[in-house]
């Protein structure tokens, strides 16, 4: 009976005592859905020694925290986390269950959806509910074309979705918020585990830089060839920005794949985003549209990127970008100092 299922849940991803940004964003998005459906919002928190994080989950919007604290849950592993999450979902029956579209979130959601025999929508970028039918409307860019598709799961519960990081907004942290903590115990034996985490290596390379960059210069196929793409690096160097590319650029081999921006690459939210020779396909746009200021340079006045751009220049990148570089340099001389971006 699908009527038995009530409430909106968010899987809380944590590591080293820190809650992932996407989980906070989902608490923000989930609280709107919960409000519309008039049900509580719950955070699902698993790990070892993570009880203290409950108050944070509540402060970011949850009314209830379902908690399982167990040594076997120290590091994320599909087999142990899945057991905990399945147990909670079967016992408390949420109607909607959201996960971050991160490697671990996607991994867990895929396993749980199979065990619960329910629908899972991948990489959604918009969430809403049909209040009358109590249906989650999970939308994502559809394959091909500048078009979005809304995916529904009508007959099975919970309705599950993974959601792209950085597209939803977190609520500001409210220390005074009150909530209920429900702690459960499950049996987990290390000896039964078929996987062991030997080592976790944090990588602070380009990819992390891109996600945190304040200014990004993104080049597209319109630069023509690898030689033309050098302009992008030159502009980025001049203004102290990070470089990114579209999928076509990555596939052409002009940039390493970790610098791809978009649906199948990174989602970025810099203060300034330059899109140069980028057409603005929906799969690209979902990865950058939340940037504060978007500047597009493209020789086709009808390129969809101009619909997203705060300011657009219609022109040949090979002409415009060198001028831009030159003027920035000149400005620097005039101002007698540096132009730096914060």
């Amino acid at each position: 009976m699908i009527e038995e299922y009530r409430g909106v849940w968010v899987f809380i991803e944590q590591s080293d005592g820190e809650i992932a940004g996407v989980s906070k964003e989902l608490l923000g998005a989930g609280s709107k859905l919960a409000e519309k459906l008039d049900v509580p919002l719950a955070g699902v928190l698993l790990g070892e020694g993570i009880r203290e994080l409950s108050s944070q989950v509540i402060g970011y919007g949850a009314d209830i925290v379902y908690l399982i604290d167990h040594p076997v849950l120290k590091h994320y592993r599909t087999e142990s986390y899945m057991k905990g999450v399945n147990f909670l979902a079967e016992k408390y029956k949420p109607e909607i269950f959201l996960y971050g579209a991160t490697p671990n979130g996607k991994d867990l959601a895929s396993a749980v959806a199979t065990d619960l025999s329910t629908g899972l929508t991948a990489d959604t970028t918009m969430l809403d509910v049909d209040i009358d039918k109590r249906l989650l409307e999970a939308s994502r860019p559809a394959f091909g074309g500048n078009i979005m598709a809304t995916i529904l799961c009508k007959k099975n519960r919970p309705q599950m979705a993974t959601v792209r990081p950085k597209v939803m907004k977190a609520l500001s942290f409210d220390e005074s918020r009150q909530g209920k903590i429900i702690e459960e115990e499950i049996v987990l034996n290390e000896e039964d585990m078929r996987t062991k985490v030997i080592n976790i290596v944090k990588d602070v390379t380009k990819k992390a830089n891109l996600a945190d960059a304040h200014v990004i210069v993104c080049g597209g196929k319109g630069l023509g060839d690898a030689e033309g793409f050098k302009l992008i690096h030159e502009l980025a160097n001049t203004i102290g920005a990070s470089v990114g590319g579209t999928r076509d650029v990555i596939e052409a081999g002009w940039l390493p794949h970790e610098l791809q921006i978009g649906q199948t690459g990174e989602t970025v939210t810099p203060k300034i985003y330059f899109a140069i020779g980028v057409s603005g396909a929906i799969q690209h746009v979902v990865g950058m549209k939340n940037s504060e200021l978007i500047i597009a340079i493209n020789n086709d006045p009808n390129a969809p990127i101009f619909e997203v751009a705060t300011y657009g220049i219609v022109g040949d990148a090979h002409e415009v970008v060198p001028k831009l570089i030159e003027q920035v340099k000149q400005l620097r001389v005039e101002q007698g100092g540096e132009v730096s971006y914060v």
Partner: protein
Amino acid sequence: MHIVVCVKQVPDTKIIKINPKTNTLDRRSAPAILNPYDAHAVQEAVKLKQALGQGKISVLSMGPPQATEVIKKSIEIGADEGYLISDRAFAGADTLATSYALSKALEKIAAKHPIDIVICGKHAIDGDTGQVGPGIARRMDIPPITNVIEVTKFDKENRIILVKRKLTNGYEELEVQLPCLLTVEKEINQIAYSPLPNMIRAARYKPNIWSVGDLEAVDKAQLGLKGSPTVVGKMFTPPKLDGGKLLEGAVDEQVKQLIEVLSERKELLNVK
């Protein structure tokens, strides 16, 4: 050692063209290819087989009869055998129904020759979900290891492998007992040139083709459209963002305006 790789035929999104009027995909323009991630999955199986000095690689695909093409392509890369499950009953499957159908075929393959490792692509480029691999693993009750970037060690005696798995921010090293399922990223290997004998074998190769009736104990309610809990509701063009201001004038003039805008937005920019 028996490795089975799941391979999917997908439209080539690099070549595919979008009709700017209808905003939809011009499917006729799209040649079908082996999902690029799955090519790396087959290549990894070949690498493992070579490192072990023995073993057998089977590939499995679900799709229309034309999907035999991706099986042939896999034979070229170095697979030994190929299976295609093809039936109207499978059509319209979402990831839940797909993993069910594939796991039933894997059951049948395993009955003849037990499976040690299943390898899938990280995702299929036509849907980008990455849900089928873990789904298969759950149905076979073997551990799924997603986003694998390297198999660093293969301990044949103890039936354990060591793998690196990509995370949001770095990677982790995992020790995994066989049998298991891996989904692989592109960086795991480079597709090698196919040796001529493989090409010749591939050209002549006839895969095993199974319909629903060939699989054992199948619950038809879990297949295809019927077995798919997710449905596409509406399609819509993304909401307009508040962009759209084109700068005007000669290029020099436009660049100047842009610099002015940038300098004005002091909250974004620090001009000392």
